[in-house]
């Protein structure tokens, strides 16, 4: 390798390029922050959906109370007891085992007191009793 003078030698040395370094380690936290923000948004969306579903289920089940009417306490229609025959027919006709069991379970009693009568419990609940 003939190297006659400094200038040419400098030129020769400059042909050796310094190796490129690794990337700065700053992309990882940025990506982590992006994931964190995405997670926050996902959690918020899930919370909104859950609250919506709960609200949708709770609101229709609320029965509007009329101030003059007492709470329903008495039975106006007799509840039919569950017999083996009913159970068999339910199991035979229901689309699934679970729905048959649901049918056999207790149901809400839609009984009300007639308008001209009052429930004793409702009357007592209105009275202020000092003990």
């Amino acid at each position, binding site marked *: 390798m003939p*190297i006659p003078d400094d200038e040419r030698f400098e030129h020769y040395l400059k042909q*050796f390029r*310094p190796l490129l*370094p690794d990337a*700065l*380690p*700053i992309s990882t936290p940025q990506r982590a922050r992006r994931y964190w923000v995405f997670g926050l948004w996902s959690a918020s969306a899930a919370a909104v959906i859950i609250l919506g579903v709960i609200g949708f289920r709770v609101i229709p089940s609320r029965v509007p109370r009329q101030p003059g009417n007492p709470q329903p306490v008495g039975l106006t229609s007799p509840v039919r007891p569950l017999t083996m025959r009913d159970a068999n027919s339910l199991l035979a006709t229901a689309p699934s085992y679970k729905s048959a069991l649901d049918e056999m379970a207790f149901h809400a009693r839609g009984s009300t007191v007639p308008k001209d009568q009052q429930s004793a419990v409702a009357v007592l609940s209105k009275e202020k009793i000092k003990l």
Partner: protein
Amino acid sequence: MDRTEGSRGDIEFLYRQYGAALVLFASTITGERSRAQDAVHQVFLKLIANGDLSRAQDKKAYLFACTRNAVLNERKFQDRHEPLEMDAAWFSPPHRDIAGERNLRRALAALPDDQREIVVLHIWGDLTFAQIADLLSINSNTAASRYRYALGKLRDEMSAKENSCADPR
């Protein structure tokens, strides 16, 4: 894009522009490329965290000075003054001249620290003798004369190695 993002972008641009030369410069002080790279990363991460480089008049010279300080501080902290050992390649050689790259590394490592610094800063850092003098707190003429002396030694070292390779007797 806010100011912080803008300055961060500028700093990342400077890293892409001068990162290779800075890591080479640090490698010629530490001898270990991984430590050199850590020191350069440390410099740039601090710059990103602490603000911008707008106050630095000569950004390139400032980066070399910061890198030098980081490497020397780390060496002082570890209290290690071992002879320079080259663990990995420093250069991408022309025409895949791997032997030439190794030869150059050996020749550089054989130079005294103060001469090696000046050679690397001038050839691969593209710093002028005035910038080097400012960085190393020496006279500009001293920097130039050390460079000429170092270049001569480097050339002799490399030529001797080339000749010994060509003539194995």
